[in-house]
């Protein structure tokens, strides 16, 4: 029994580490290579705190080995969690400016390497290569959880099960909350979140911090269960094992991770039974090979994300009148994109662009374009390929900086502002490719754009769970209303990957609506859409105008532009060469030639 209880403890520790890493790897799509050393930092911090105080008369005391501060295990665990959380935030400091995923890999890999070394040379903390021993067993009341005795080991396995369940609940709660929805949106789409007015860096770093803190806490319980440990317990191999568990089970899915931990964690004792000590390299060969094969054969893991999602019955927005009269919009309530009022609120020209320029290494992409968007109208940017239309969108939304010129939203200068701040002032954009998260539901893809959600802050999730829950209901209703405007509310609970491309385009426009911005930039809303769906897109875009939005779109289809646009701007080589109604522009022989060639 004691033997099996020990195996159970090991598997549960691995499971907790993997479940928490899944938040980072599965939800946010980021890898930490330093889980082992963070786990170790937690373990040694807790060990050093609970070890008994040195007896002044003892000779060994002078070396400091196996002596500590004599704390109770509970505060020691809390400190271990805090220390690893702070350590993780410090490691990720350079990543704040470098939001690309490989920097987190690099930094955590380097930290794992340096950290292993720190653990083995810092004798006062870890006891050096030989580690610490004599860590007192955990006690709750009079019950001792000493793993030296069989009964204690079984008790400890029970305790570990409780802790693992807590870790699973925390991870599941965060992962399936609005915060988790933010993380999933970051995954694979680094540029999307800022365009929805949300700064991706904070949730990412916070997730890394939480993942690390959980590893630190589990480290403390590892220390109490072992009684003795060496820095070698926390090598890169362990980090990789934890990653393998997540990948094998299925990223973004906690049920998968639990299965993965049981399989890979159970492998070691089985191989040890069969092969003895020679089983250890085999175990690593197997989980290494599992990682490679999974990526090649079944990248989504044993239990793919969304496989267990219940397909709920869609309930279409009840309050929504399909025939909008323009006066009534979607009720954002508390979630409105509150914009600080600017002096020229009632200008008819909402966005004024003056002489903006951008060149790439001597090649001029936009050579001094000036135009403005009129309130409540649809303006089309047309022109041949390479005319700088998308580049201008990028400059308006701040993803590209202007070399010179000015962009004013209701009299307020936007150049130099980060993308997410510009969005918060009221400009949102769509992309040529839809940039939806395919393994999330349609509703979630739209809901993520709703501004000011309390549930996106971990602070609120913990301290105001009910308020967050209530808010989530309203957010979903807003998202559903937005989908209803575009006529795709019936798809709300489907996974995006099951939708036709035309429907995906409509969902992307619904998401734009959910930002509550009043200036909407649409980049080729009909590209790649089948002819049958083009009419739906046209209807959808005209509804945006009915709702009072100021729309600017880039589009190649003249047919589309003719039917929709109130005003058209003809660009060539980054300069405005003509402006007017679509009919006027199309009738100009010169422009037609430029556009269609000879």
């Amino acid at each position: 029994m004691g033997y099996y209880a020990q195996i159970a403890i090991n598997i549960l520790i691995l499971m907790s580490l993997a479940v928490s890493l899944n938040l980072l790897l599965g939800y946010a799509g980021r890898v930490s290579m330093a889980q082992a050393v963070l786990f170790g930092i937690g373990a040694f911090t807790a060990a050093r705190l609970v070890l008994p105080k040195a007896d002044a008369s003892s000779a060994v005391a002078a070396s400091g080995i196996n002596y500590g501060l004599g704390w109770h295990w509970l505060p020691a665990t809390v400190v271990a969690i805090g220390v690893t959380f702070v350590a993780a935030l410090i490691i990720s400091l350079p990543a704040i400016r470098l939001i690309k995923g490989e920097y987190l890999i690099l930094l955590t890999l380097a930290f794992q390497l340096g950290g292993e070394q720190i653990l083995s040379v810092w004798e006062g903390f870890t006891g050096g290569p030989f580690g610490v021993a004599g860590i007192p067993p955990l006690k709750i009341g009079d019950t001792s959880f000493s793993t030296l005795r069989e009964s204690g080991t079984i008790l400890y396995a029970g305790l570990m099960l409780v802790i693992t369940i807590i870790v699973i609940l925390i991870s599941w709660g965060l992962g399936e909350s609005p915060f988790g929805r933010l993380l999933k949106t970051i995954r694979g789409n680094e540029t999307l979140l800022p365009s929805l007015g949300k700064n991706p860096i904070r949730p990412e770093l916070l997730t890394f911090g939480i993942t690390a803190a959980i590893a630190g806490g589990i480290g403390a319980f590892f220390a109490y269960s072992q009684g003795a440990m060496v820095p070698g317990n926390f090598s890169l191999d362990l980090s990789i094992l934890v990653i393998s568990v997540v990948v094998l089970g299925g990223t973004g899915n906690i049920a998968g991770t639990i299965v993965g931990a049981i399989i890979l964690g159970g492998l070691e004792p089985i191989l040890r039974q069969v092969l003895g000590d020679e089983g250890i390299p085999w175990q690593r060969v197997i989980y290494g090979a599992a990682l490679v094969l999974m990526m090649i054969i079944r990248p989504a893991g044993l239990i793919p994300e969304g496989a267990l999602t219940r397909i709920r019955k869609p309930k279409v927005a009840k309050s929504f009148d399909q025939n909008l009269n323009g006066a009534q919009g979607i009720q954002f309530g508390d979630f409105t994109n509150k914009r600080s009022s600017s002096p020229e609120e009632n200008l008819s020209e909402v966005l004024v662009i003056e002489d903006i320029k951008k060149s790439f290494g001597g090649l001029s992409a936009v050579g001094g374009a000036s135009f403005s968007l009129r309130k409540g109208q649809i303006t089309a940017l047309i022109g041949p390929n390479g005319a700088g239309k998308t580049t201008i969108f990028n400059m308006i939304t701040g993803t590209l900086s202007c070399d010179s010129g000015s962009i004013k939203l209701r009299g307020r200068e936007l150049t130099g502002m980060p993308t997410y701040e510009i969005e918060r002032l009221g400009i949102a954009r769509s992309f040529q490719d839809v940039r939806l998260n395919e393994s999330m539901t349609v509703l979630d893809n739209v809901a993520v754009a709703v501004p000011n959600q309390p549930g996106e802050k971990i602070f609120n999730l913990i301290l105001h769970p009910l308020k967050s829950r209530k808010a989530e209901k309203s957010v979903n209703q807003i998202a559903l209303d937005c989908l209803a405007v575009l006529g795709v509310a019936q798809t709300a609970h489907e996974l995006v990957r099951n939708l036709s491309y035309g429907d995906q385009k409509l969902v992307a426009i619904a998401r734009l609506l959910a930002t509550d911005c009043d200036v909407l930039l649409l980049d080729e809303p009909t590209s790649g859409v089948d002819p049958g769906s083009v009419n739906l897109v046209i209807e959808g875009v005209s509804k945006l105008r009915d709702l009072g939005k100021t729309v600017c779109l880039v589009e190649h289809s003249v047919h589309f532009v003719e039917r929709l646009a109130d005003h058209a701007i003809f660009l060539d080589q980054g300069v405005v060469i003509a402006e007017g109604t679509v009919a006027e522009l199309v009738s100009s022989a010169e422009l037609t030639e430029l556009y269609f060639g000879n």
Partner: protein
Amino acid sequence: MNFELLAQLTIAGIVLGSFYALLGVSFGLVYQTSKIFHLANAIPFAAGGYGAVWSAEVLHLPLFVALAFGLLMAVVFGLLILFLGYFPVMRRNGALLSLFLVSLGITVAFPNLLQIVFGTENIPLRTYNSEGELSSAFDNRVFSSGFLTITLIDVLKIIVSWVLIIAVVVFVKRTRSGRSITALRTNPTMATAVGIDRKRVYILVFALGSFLAGVAGLFVTAEFVASPVMALQWTIVGFIAVFFGGIGSLVGTAFGGLVLGLLSSLSSLYLPVNYSPIVVFASLFIILLIRPQGLFGKASV
């Protein structure tokens, strides 16, 4: 300050830095072009060392032939990883994260396979001499001049590393195949549009990168021993050299490696020798904080 110690540590730093530079260029070639975080670069490193040791002992090959065999193995294993690991994932349009996870799996499986096949013991490089006995293949002579000493292998490390680095840089800048590497790195869409075969370029950079990693593996084997875990730590230092020196520039990477080696060696003036991994990590951390594009990198657009 102790001048003799300073001079000796500087020489040691140049030796170490040249080696870092070699590893950095090895990984940098692959990373620049493919953006794969190719941790499995450790495999050609180890394959080079084991290839030389095995062919000398089992096939009775003379020293230089055994070394060449080791390099061949390095390239073969590097390309095997590309063909059996990365290409299948790319064919499925796998994300860079998936490619990294493949790399990770290979990195953890391979040294353990080596351990299963060759055992855990460290194997020195030995060849059969004229009497038909196995003996140490390499007489690592020590040159001394006054207070300075340097070993033959150290001298070779400096010369071979820089000759290879310069050769690679010239190849990339001057030859047609080399320029296709630069083209694919700077503008993948345009490069494929003008008919550059992405797959061919990948094969080229993986072969070159693995060759350089194999050379590094031979040095470690000749100086010390071949062991299953010989490669990973060095490989990671190679990564750090790339980001420390500046991504996108092989010359920047090479000088980054050199500076990293010097820092690491000179730090032992003030710190115990076994602190050098910590110094390397701290240097990377500080550079990324104050100069995200790397020491010699150009600011990105």
